[in-house]
Every structure is written in structure tokens, then in C-alpha cells.
């Protein structure tokens, strides 16, 4: 009898749950957005970027935190919380209208750059207060924001690299403020590997841009093409579209553009060294610019193709910086484990992509330096990164 009563109660409870359980969950508020961009846009709306130079100096680690900066960060708390929430999302769709072609607006790029500075200022403030782990977490969130900026168009990729560079500098500075802790360093290495994947590449951006450019070089898209050229008006020496444009003009320009981009992409994807690729890109670009001055076939290419030689240099520099940070973490881990820095660079370390060789490792009074063996041929500069060690 008791067993029957118990069974009836279970059945009734089950029936009640079946009836009212789903109703209760349907009445609950919707889940938070899983598109990071929606959260970023909200943080942009809430954020008043500080215009003072002292804020930028603080973000770059040139100065300490002032009362003004602390106040600024206090005001930006809600913005920061939304940005952190967004950074944890896997998916990010900015809702860009690619069909607009080169008139496509990218207002989020400037805002992302500004937001990244706020996050890094917070990281530096946390570090100055001794919250190193939390400060590093802010830097990682900034790198996630950089990844969310995307690489669908070349300009986005450039902004991504710029944000990444600021975050890496901040990480390096924070690591120099505290004795190396192997456990924290291991955690950081894992986080960096996760944040950096998938590797950004401008091959994808070029593919999208090529598609957009060729669509725009059609008679029915002429107003948009002209509009795109108007964006170039601030450059007095930039090529201009002729007043009269016909299908023949566009066809020749499409053919030239396709030929040029195909050659460029083949060069970039090829097995050549950085120096060889750089030289090849530069030669092709010079030739194209000269041709654009002489004949109209290359006019659209001259305006619509990004400065690929320069973009390539920035991408290689970003790779060099990321590799240097990873190598630096290995050296710091060794210091944390043995109490002293290695005399020589351990084997099988990541290489300097400018030369394909190991970084030059040099111990200094404050820590150590990692220097590229190859030169950035676009900027005529050899890069080095300093790691301070406590």
C-alpha cells in the first residue's frame, strides 16, 4: 500500500513538473548575448574616451597612475565590465555591410582601439596595486578583444596587431614587476597560446577585399566606386578616376587588378624568405604606381589595393613580437625554477621571423634583451624587446 502511494506521488510530481517546469523556464529572462560584438557596442555607447595625453602615457607605461587616471577608470567601470563580458565570448560578428564595397564603414575599429587602452590602463593600475594576476587577466582580455576585431579586411587586421602590441608590452612590463613564478608563467603560456589561435593572416583579408573590389568595378556600381575614390581625396597625389568611364575602362581595370593581386598573393604564399618577399612586393608596387601615372588601366588598383609591402612588414613584426614574448616566458620560467637566467638561449626556441634565426639573447643589469637578427626592411629597423627581471 505504502509503495503504491509513493509511486502515485512520484507520478503526480512528475506530471506537475512536466506541466509547470517548462512554463517557469520560458518566463525567465533571455540569456546574455553570445555575440561579443553586441556587448562591445554597448560598452562603446557607455564610454567617453579620455583625450588627455597623460592617459596614453600611462597606458604605454611611461608614467604612474595619477588621481585623474584613477577617476577615469572609476568612471569607466561599467564599460570595462561589458568589455570583459564580451571578451569571454567565442563568437563575434560586427555586422559589417560588406556589400557596400570600399565605402564600407568600420566605426568599431577606432572604438576598439580606445577600449583596449581603457582595459590596459586598468591592467596597469591593478599591477601598481600588486594585483599582478588580475592585471595579466586584463591583458589577456585585451588580446581577446584584438582577436575579435578580426582579419576579414586588411585594416581590421592592422588594428588587431596594434592592440595586440600594446597588450604584449603591458604583459612584459607586469612580468618585470614581480619575481617570476613558474606556476603563473605556465598559466600565462597556455592562455597566450589559446588567445593567439587561430593565427591572424592577411591572406583572408586580401581575398575578401579582392572580391569587394571586383564587384565595385562594374558599370552599375559606378557611384559607389566614385564614392570610394572620394575617400582618397585627402591625398593630392593619389590617382583620380577619369570623368568619363565606360565598360572598356572598367574591364581593363578589373583585369589589371586581378593580375596584380594574384601575383601578390602567390608571392606572399611562396616559400621565399622575408627579405625576398619584401623586395618582390616592393618592386611590384613601385611598378604598379608608375603604371597608374601613365595609363588608366592601373588607376583602380593603385587606389584599392592596400600597401601590401607595408602590411606584410607589420604582420611579420607582430609575429616577431609574439615569438619574442613566448621565448621571454621560457627564460623567465627558467629563472623561476633555477633562480638565475640561462647563460645562453635554450635550443628549439621560436625564431625571429625576419631572419629565420634565433633571437639574439643578451643579459642586462635589469634583466635581458631579445633582439631580431633580421631587419624590418620597410622601416629599416631592427627590433628588440627588453624584459625586466626581479
Amino acid at each position, binding site marked *: 500500500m505504502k509503495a503504491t502511494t509513493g509511486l502515485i506521488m512520484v507520478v503526480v510530481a512528475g506530471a506537475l513538473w512536466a506541466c509547470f517546469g517548462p512554463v517557469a523556464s520560458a518566463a525567465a529572462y533571455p540569456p546574455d548575448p553570445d555575440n561579443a560584438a553586441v556587448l562591445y557596442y554597448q560598452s562603446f555607447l557607455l564610454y567617453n574616451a579620455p583625450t588627455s595625453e597623460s592617459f596614453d602615457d600611462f597606458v604605454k607605461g611611461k608614467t604612474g597612475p595619477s588621481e585623474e587616471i584613477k577617476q577615469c577608470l572609476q568612471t569607466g567601470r561599467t564599460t570595462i565590465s561589458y568589455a570583459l563580458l564580451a571578451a569571454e565570448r567565442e563568437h563575434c560578428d560586427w555586422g559589417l555591410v560588406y556589400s557596400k564595397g570600399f565605402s564600407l564603414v568600420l*566605426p568599431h575599429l*577606432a572604438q576598439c582601439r580606445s577600449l583596449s587602452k581603457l582595459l590596459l590602463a586598468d591592467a596597469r593600475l591593478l599591477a601598481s596595486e600588486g594585483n599582478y594576476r588580475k592585471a595579466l587577466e586584463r591583458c589577456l582580455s585585451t588580446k581577446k578583444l584584438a582577436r575579435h576585431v578580426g582579419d576579414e579586411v586588411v585594416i581590421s587586421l592592422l588594428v588587431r596587431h596594434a592592440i595586440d602590441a600594446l597588450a604584449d608590452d603591458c604583459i612584459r612590463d607586469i612580468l618585470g614587476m614581480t619575481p617570476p613564478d613558474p606556476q603563473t608563467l605556465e598559466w600565462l603560456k597556455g592562455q597566450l597560446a589559446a588567445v593567439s589561435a587561430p593565427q591572424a593572416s592577411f591572406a583572408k583579408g586580401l581575398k575578401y577585399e579582392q572580391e569587394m573590389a571586383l564587384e565595385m568595378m562594374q558599370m552599375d556600381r559606378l557611384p559607389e566606386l566614385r564614392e570610394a575614390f572620394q575617400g582618397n581625396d585627402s591625398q593630392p597625389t593619389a590617382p583620380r578616376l577619369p570623368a568619363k568611364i565606360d565598360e572598356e575602362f572598367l574591364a581593363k581595370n578589373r583585369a589589371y587588378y586581378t593580375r596584380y593581386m594574384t601575383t601578390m598573393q602567390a608571392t606572399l604564399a611562396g616559400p621565399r624568405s622575408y627579405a625576398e618577399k619584401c623586395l618582390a612586393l616592393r618592386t611590384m608596387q613601385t611598378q604598379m604606381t608608375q603604371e597608374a601615372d601613365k595609363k588608366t588601366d592601373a588607376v583602380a588598383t593603385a587606389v584599392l589595393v592596400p600597401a601590401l609591402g607595408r602590411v606584410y612588414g607589420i604582420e611579420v613584426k607582430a609575429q616577431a613580437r609574439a615569438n619574442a614574448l613566448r621565448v621571454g616566458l621560457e627564460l623567465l620560467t627558467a629563472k623561476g625554477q633555477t633562480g638565475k637566467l640561462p647563460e645562453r638561449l635554450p635550443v628549439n626556441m621560436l625564431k625571429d621571423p625576419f631572419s629565420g634565426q634565433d633571437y639574439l639573447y643578451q643579459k642586462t643589469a635589469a634583466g635581458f634583451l631579445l633582439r631580431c637578427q633580421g631587419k624590418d626592411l620597410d622601416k629599416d629597423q631592427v627590433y628588440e624587446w627588453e624584459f625586466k627581471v626581479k
Partner: protein
Amino acid sequence: MSERKDEKWLDDQLQRAVDGTTPVFDAQAWKQKYAGEFEALRSRGRGVGWGLPHHNRREDLDRWGKPHPTRILRSSFGKVAIAAAIMVTAGILLIGHLWPTTDKPTPGPQPMAQQSPAQMVSMISLSTAFRSGGMEGLDRQCERALERLGPRPTSVSMQELLKDISGKGQERTSI
């Protein structure tokens, strides 16, 4: 009716109104009557050249020791030279204004300041900024765009929004 006739008519009227005789200036009598003042004026005239015209070798020089402009104007050669200079200057100005030279300023490209915020953040504008100034150029363009797009309110309270919707600051609103 000419101006001369008018003057004649006026002179006749004046003559009748005074005493009917033509007034004559007697310089000698005036000098004798105002001897002191006349001598004072003469002595100022002999000084450094300020005041009354003076008659010495410096009369044709200005205060900087260069030929006085009036002296140049008085000579026929000076007149011709000045006329020629004026004509040449006018000619140069006229040619410069009318001649279609490549240096002549033409309506230039739209300055950055005139770009709308939307234009500033278009893909082509950002690409151009990068092409001309590298990452620094791109960064500057982003900063400028941000200045034009912002600033934004740091917080918008529900109450403020309701006030805006109702259009009445103090009135209580319910939705």
C-alpha cells in the same frame, strides 16, 4: 549751368556783401605787423627740416638722406620712370591673374576636417591613412574619427529617457 558761372555768381554776391572792392594781401605790411612771429617761424625753418619749408642744400633730401619724392616727381625723367614702373607692375599682375599656370591653386581635395565621421571611418579612408602614414597614420585617423564621433554620455538614466519622451521635465510619466 557751369561750375564757373556759379562761382562768379557767388563772388559777386560776396563783393556786394563786404564792401565791393577786391581784397589784396600786403605781405610787407603783414611782416611788419607780426615781426616777432615771422622771425620765430623763420628760425624753425632753418632747423632740422621740420616745420616750414626751408631753403638750404638739404631741401631735396628726405629725413633718411635720400632724394625727396617731390623732387623726383618734379623731374621729367622721374615721371617717366614712375609711369613705366606702374605699367610694368600692372602688366605682371594682369598676366599672373589671367595666365593658366600649373601653379595656380585649383579646387583641392576635400580636407580631412571637412570629412564626415562616416567618411573618416570608411574602409577606403582608413586604407588611405595607412598607405600614407603607416600605423601612425591609421592611428591618427582613428583618433580623429573618435573625436568626431564622440563624446558619448557615460550613463543614461531611465528617468532622463522618460523625460525626453514625455517632453515635460517635471511631469511624472508612466508607461
